[in-house]
């Protein structure tokens, strides 16, 4: 026979543990945990090329290198979205858009399980791989 205190508090504990992860969905809609400038800076790099088509192809190849499968591609908008499952689900949206006449800005945004990724490290890893595949140096944008 369990102690009555345990019987009462065990479900409460479980509820608290679950509530800990239950973000208010209204907050979640427009939630950011970094400033817009800091986030864009972490997520963007400029490459010295004017070839958007080749850049999009290379983004797809890099995502394949990393084990992602593609959800959607739009060459006109320079957009690729892809998903990877391990013991997690990682979703990436990558865009390539011209900046001036001789540069392309690539921006990646990722979602890990239920949360948007704002850490710098995963983006750095992605751009390192992309720069290698493009044979180009990645420049900071902001």
């Amino acid at each position, binding site marked *: 026979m369990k102690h009555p205190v345990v019987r009462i508090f065990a479900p409460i504990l*479980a509820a608290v543990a679950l509530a800990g992860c239950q973000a208010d969905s209204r907050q979640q809609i427009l939630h950011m945990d970094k400033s817009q400038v800091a986030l864009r800076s972490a997520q963007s790099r400029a490459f010295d090329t004017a070839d958007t088509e080749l850049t999009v192809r290379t983004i797809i190849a890099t995502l394949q290198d990393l084990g992602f499968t593609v959800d959607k*591609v*739009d060459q006109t908008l320079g957009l690729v979205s892809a998903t990877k499952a*391990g013991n997690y689900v990682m979703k990436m949206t990558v865009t390539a858009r011209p900046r001036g006449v001789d540069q392309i800005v690539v921006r990646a945004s990722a979602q890990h399980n*239920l949360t948007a990724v704002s850490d710098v490290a995963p983006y750095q890893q992605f751009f390192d791989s992309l720069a*290698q595949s493009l044979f180009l140096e990645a420049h900071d944008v902001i």
Partner: protein
Amino acid sequence: MMFKVPPFVLLIPLSAVAALSGCQQTTPTAALTTAMTASETRQMTGRRFDINDERAVLTSIVQLLQDLGYKVGETDVKAGLVTGTKGAEEVVTYYGSIIRVTVTTTPIRDKGGIQVRATFQDIVQARDPRYTYARSTVGPEVYQQFFDRLAQSLFLEAHDI
């Protein structure tokens, strides 16, 4: 002198730990690294075909995915890409099983021919993505068979079969 602590007081720090652990997020760096190098992955999951018509190769890939019972999703000739899925796209009960594939084509400039690359994922999908996981069923032999079949598919189409 000892104070008598009511037992529920002991549960307060426990609740705090539970509340915090409920929201624990692991840094997702593992998602953007792989056990194999990019060139090893490309070698295992790619094959060069001695043909220069990229559109014909993409058509063969679509035909092959139809042969294999995949539903073709995204296709983009400019990007050299075809995607397909087999299994439950919508998770109706708690879990659903889905195989996702992305196949890309790249013209090889110096040597000629088309490099075809496939990426398969065998996923057990949960309604909550935190419980989704990948099965480790996709090995080198899967890619080997896929490319053998693609070679057949290209041959069949070249001969209008």
